[in-house]
């Protein structure tokens, strides 16, 4: 008999879009009136699939729809999906922060999640007082914390400051102390959301390390949410893929990752400019394709993908140039590439198709493409921000491209000679 520790049955979550105002109150009253008469909630029947790029017909969307899954004791389940697929909503429901609109989840053990690092820390209180407070918020009893307090303090490396208010701490010390508390939780089910840990490479490393420890000890169940396919593959035994609030795949982790890479929903991979521009040099098309000339939204560092551009030059322009820029999710520029970098600029009139191999030195994450054409040192002719988006995933370096600091990840060959 299978030892199921968590069972999700038909969970759905509906959100109302727009602002809370008089309309909300009218809906609330109507809902209440239906309830009084013993009828079904009228607003549960409506609602669109959660696809943010299309304009919906209703104010209600389903962030999750009919999610069913089971987790066995000791299993490490990877939950993967693009931004907006419903991963965070699912996690919120699993960690009991918000309730599902319909359905139920049954738990066979205590749940804790690593995303709550530092929750409820009070700046005025000392490190020691905060360990107790934070521990209690995370569900530990005072006795449990007391028995572990020395270990927690040692692990945090903040011994010297432990009786100083945490508002005097450096941000690094703050995180260390917060993580130390979380690290000594002993739940039967641990939820790790890597997405929320982005930005602090050290913390991410620690969180994943902690997860490995837990899985090695055995018996502990982990739900792991990540964008890092390499880490997911390495750690998880099984995976579910979410897409627009629905489970589109459930099964072995390798198949799940493949299914995720091949699916495409969120990013624009094709951009066409249909209305003509009165500029003398302009873009008409941009897309991201793989080597089989298919449109893709997920770019892996294992396979070569290309940026395809179509441009029109009306007349010969002196020093005219086309360029594109890659920016990351934080809108930081990663690099700008110009047509004159390694080839000659287009010097004659006509329509052109351009193929540019995408570089493989990015860190895993989401990126956007800006297009621009200008006359060098003189004027900008056209500028289109965020026309395309793609997700860059790492399948070669075991998650290193995400865990190391830096804006890019460039593998270099070290020539080592013994002397």
């Amino acid at each position, binding site marked *: 008999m299978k030892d199921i520790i968590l069972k999700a049955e038909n969970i759905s979550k509906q959100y109302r879009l727009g602002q809370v105002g008089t309309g909300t109150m009218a809906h*609330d009253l109507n809902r209440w009136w239906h309830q009084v008469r013993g009828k079904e909630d009228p607003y549960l029947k409506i609602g669109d699939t959660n696809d943010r790029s299309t304009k919906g017909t209703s104010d209600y969307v389903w962030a999750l729809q009919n999610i069913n899954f089971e987790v066995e*004791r000791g299993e490490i389940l990877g939950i993967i999906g693009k931004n907006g697929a419903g991963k965070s909503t699912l996690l919120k429901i699993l960690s009991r922060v918000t*309730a599902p609109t319909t359905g139920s989840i049954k738990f066979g*053990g205590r749940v804790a999640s690593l995303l709550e690092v530092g929750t409820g820390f009070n700046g005025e209180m000392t490190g020691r007082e905060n360990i107790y407070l934070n521990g209690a918020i995370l569900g530990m*009893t005072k006795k449990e914390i007391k028995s572990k307090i020395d270990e927690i303090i040692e692990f945090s490396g903040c011994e010297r400051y432990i009786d100083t208010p945490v508002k005097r701490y450096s941000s690094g010390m703050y995180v260390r102390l917060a993580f130390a508390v979380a690290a000594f939780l002993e739940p039967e089910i641990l939820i790790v959301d890597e997405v929320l840990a982005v930005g602090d490479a050290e913390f991410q490393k620690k969180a994943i390390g902690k997860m490995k420890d837990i899985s090695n000890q055995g018996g502990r169940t982990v739900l792991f949410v990540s964008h890092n396919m390499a880490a997911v593959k390495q750690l998880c035994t099984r995976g579910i893929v979410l897409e627009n609030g629905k489970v589109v795949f459930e099964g072995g982790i390798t198949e799940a990752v493949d299914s995720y890479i091949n699916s495409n929903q969120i990013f624009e991979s094709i951009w066409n400019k249909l209305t003509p521009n009165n500029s003398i040099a302009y873009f008409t098309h941009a897309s991201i394709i793989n080597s089989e000339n298919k449109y893709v939204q997920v770019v892996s560092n294992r396979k070569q993908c290309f940026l395809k551009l179509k441009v029109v030059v009306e007349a010969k322009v002196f020093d005219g140039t086309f360029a594109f820029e890659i920016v990351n999710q934080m809108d930081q520029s990663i690099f700008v590439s110009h047509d004159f970098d390694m080839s000659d600029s287009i010097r004659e009139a006509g329509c052109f198709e351009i193929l540019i191999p995408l570089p493989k030195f990015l860190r895993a994450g989401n990126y956007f493409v800006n297009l621009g054409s200008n006359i060098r040192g003189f004027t900008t002719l056209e500028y289109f921000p965020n026309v395309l988006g793609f997700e860059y995933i790492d399948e070669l370096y075991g998650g290193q491209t995400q865990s190391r600091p830096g804006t890019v990840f460039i593998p270099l060959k070290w020539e080592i000679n013994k002397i």
Partner: protein
Amino acid sequence: MNHSEHTNTTWLFEITPKNKFFTLNLKEVWQYRDLLLLFVKRDVVTVYKQTVLGPLWYLIQPLFTSITFTIIFNNVAGIDTGTVPPFLFNLAGITVWNYFTACLTGTSNTFGANAGIFGKVYFPRIIVPLSIVVSNLLKFGIQFFIFICFYGYYYFQGAAIGMNVTTLFFPLLIVMMGVLGLGLGMFISSLVTKYRDFSNLIGFGVQLLMYLSAVMYPMALIKEKLPTYGWLVEYNPLAYVIETTRYMLLDVGQLSIYGLGFTFLVTIFVFLVGVLIFNRTEKSFIDTV
């Protein structure tokens, strides 16, 4: 933990869309009792950190309010407090009234002030309003102590004040005041998550309510001076608590068993409705706050 203990039929807990109609999961609250105490400690310890006078602020506020009331209402407006020194009369009312407002305003902001924590981790939400009521009880204790000091002073000055057998029931009266503030606060906190209008209401609502609650005048006086509107005070459960406080501690005013019974019923009702609404809100307030 034994592996065979968890089969498909035994679950530790279950998440469902809505709570049952009425749940006050005392077992769970008991599991989190340490958290309750730590919240109380946090509330008490942190409020006056980095202040010079520290906990003395707890005393300054009721003392100065009483002095002001004595000057305005007794010396200027000439409200007669009978044989009781007006300052003591006001201090008794204000001390108890303060406990109520502290509970009410504290708990009415439960969801708003704790959205950060509530949005990240689960614990029984009712722990927060409960901790507010308990930590305010400590503050009340300090303020009551200062009342006792002045009581002693006036007593030895020979003022006509005294206690009676009902004084023994004073703690029950305070519990009732706390529960009433808690219930009303939970009710309002739930409404505020969706409709912010109520947080505006509470600010001046509490102030207006004070004038209806016989804090700075005896109940008998309002009936005598304002026969047409006096009934408003008579239907205010808080007025009975304040009036009874003075009866118990200063042996002045009336003891209305009917009034106290009415207050008791209102308290139970408000508390139950508060818990009910709070229960319905806590599960998904994070989506609307």
